[in-house]
């Protein structure tokens, strides 16, 4: 295989690394930040389950991104991933709320505009609608889950130490589920644009087959794991300090609500289960892990005291749904122009 293939995949791997560095904190931040779970334990569990989620359940959300715009040249996919990564990096540096999902969608639209490919408005509407629904659903799940958990614990009258041991085990289990859901849902952001131009071929060994997309997802998931091990500790400690007012129960509820939401929008099994029962299906769309967490925290905040909520922060998140894709699309368009005209690369066919 040509070495340049890996060069072009590098932007996706960088995106994966930054996802691992930042979003692992949504899953294990509170547990590690409050020293309930050791960082090494969190990183190992997170890495294993991110890989499993990405390889086993990653195809659903990636398929929806593919419908939005099927980037058909490797340099084009490289540029889209690079534009998304740069947007995320720049907005994070500027202290603005940003989501990898929204950045990659903007980049795909940028590629569509540059290549003259049509953007499927139905898919776009579905994706943007999901961004707004995702934090809402997280909040709706978090409130009854918290009330039920608190009622059970009050009735169980566990010893403080036993409750502590249970909380540690529950945080690790919820973290594993969260990491699986993160891998399943967000691998589309990291490697989705490369699926149509994947340089890998399907292989099977010992009865286990792996499609080219799954091999891409495995590579992306490894990049996420590297991000978890190399950089996420700082973010986790910051999250832990920032949420120190939150009880262990509330922290667990937030992680579970976030994980359920990510899983719902990524699971093909759930989709076919609902379809089989004649119920409306849930769109398989990559959603923002951070915004699912915000939705769950806001839900619990509203449960306790409406005045706890910083509405200005929420407004900034909503504004990000517009500004992030716009910036990313613009960056992608400009970068594609340079790559095509300065470096003589074919960015679309």
């Amino acid at each position, binding site marked *: 295989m040509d070495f340049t293939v890996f060069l072009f995949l590098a932007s996706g791997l960088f995106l994966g690394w930054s996802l691992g560095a930042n979003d692992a904190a949504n899953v294990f931040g509170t547990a590690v930040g*409050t*020293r*309930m779970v050791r960082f090494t334990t969190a990183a190992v569990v997170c890495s294993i389950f991110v890989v499993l989620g990405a390889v086993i359940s990653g195809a659903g959300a990636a398929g929806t991104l593919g419908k939005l715009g099927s980037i058909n040249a490797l340099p084009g996919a490289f540029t889209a991933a690079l534009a998304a990564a740069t947007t995320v990096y720049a907005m994070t540096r500027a202290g603005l709320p940003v989501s990898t999902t929204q950045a990659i969608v903007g980049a795909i639209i940028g590629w569509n505009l540059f290549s003259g490919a049509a953007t499927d408005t139905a898919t776009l509407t579905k994706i943007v609608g999901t961004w707004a629904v995702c934090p809402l659903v997280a909040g709706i799940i978090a409130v009854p889950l918290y009330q039920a958990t*608190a009622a059970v*614990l*009050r009735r169980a*009258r*566990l*010893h*403080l*130490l*036993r409750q*502590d*041991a*249970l909380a540690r*085990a529950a945080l690790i289990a919820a973290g594993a589920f969260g990491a699986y859901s993160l891998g399943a849902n967000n691998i589309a952001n990291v490697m989705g644009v490369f699926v149509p131009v994947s340089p890998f071929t399907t292989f099977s060994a010992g009865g286990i087959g792996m499609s080219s997309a799954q091999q891409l997802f495995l590579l992306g998931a490894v990049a996420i794991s590297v991000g978890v091990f190399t950089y996420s500790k700082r973010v986790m400690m910051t999250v832990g300090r920032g949420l120190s007012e939150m*009880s*262990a*129960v509330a922290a667990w509820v937030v992680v579970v609500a976030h994980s359920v939401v990510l899983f719902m929008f990524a699971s093909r099994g759930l989709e076919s289960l609902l379809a089989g029962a004649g119920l409306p299906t849930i769109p398989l769309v990559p959603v923002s892990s951070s915004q699912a967490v915000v939705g769950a925290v806001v839900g619990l905040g509203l449960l306790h005291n409406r005045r706890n909520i910083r509405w200005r922060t929420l407004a900034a998140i909503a504004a990000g749904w517009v500004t992030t894709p716009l910036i990313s699309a613009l960056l992608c368009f400009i970068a594609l122009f340079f790559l095509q005209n300065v470096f003589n690369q074919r960015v679309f066919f």
Partner: protein
Amino acid sequence: MGDCNFAGRINGIGLLTGAGEFFILQDESKSRTLTLAMQLVQKPSSLFGRTRVLEGQIDEFLDKVVEAGLIFKSAVDTYLGHGACREFEDFLRDEEKVESRADNLRRAVETELYAQTLIPEARGDVLRLLEDMDNLINMYEGNLFRFSIQQPAIPRQFNDGFRQLTATVITCVESAVASARAFFRDTQAVRDHNSKVMFYETQADTLSTSLQRQIFGHDLELAHKRHLAYFVEKIDIIANTAEDVADGLAIYAIKRKI
């Protein structure tokens, strides 16, 4: 030191443990054996194994606070009846053993909590609670040493006053222990136990004031009056300390609220 044959000398101390069992503990080694037996009967599961041992140690520590109170009460009774006799000195030695065992348990719990980074949110509160409780045992022991060293001459007409005050102080501390147990298992009940602590503390203050009035109204040397009042104050202050523990527990319980 006079010899005495006090019929009321108890060979065992009744204890209601956190698990609800009632034991008669005759000495230190028996207490340790019981703890070990409890740990063996409740075979540790992998999830709660470590915490179960620690729970047992905390429960045993709280048992020691109750035991120290019962020994103190028996010792004061003995002193009022027979002075600093051999029986009284035996109680003092028992109190020393209880204090020493409680110290070891407290250190073991504190070390384990830090070494295993357990209950990070509530660790500071638990450590303060254990130290405050340990201070109550120290106060019991300190008072018995004062009786042993200073040997105050207590006229018979004040015996009932001293007995009532001592009993009320012990009940006050026992309520604080119940509140501490509730903090670990059922924070809602802390308030109920704390209200008992406040009640008995007020009772102890009333009894202490009344006893001091009787002492100063009696025809004694001023130095003698001051000496007796000093002992009344020293006993009463145990209830005040128990009230401080209860105040702390009220805050810790709010912090633990789910």
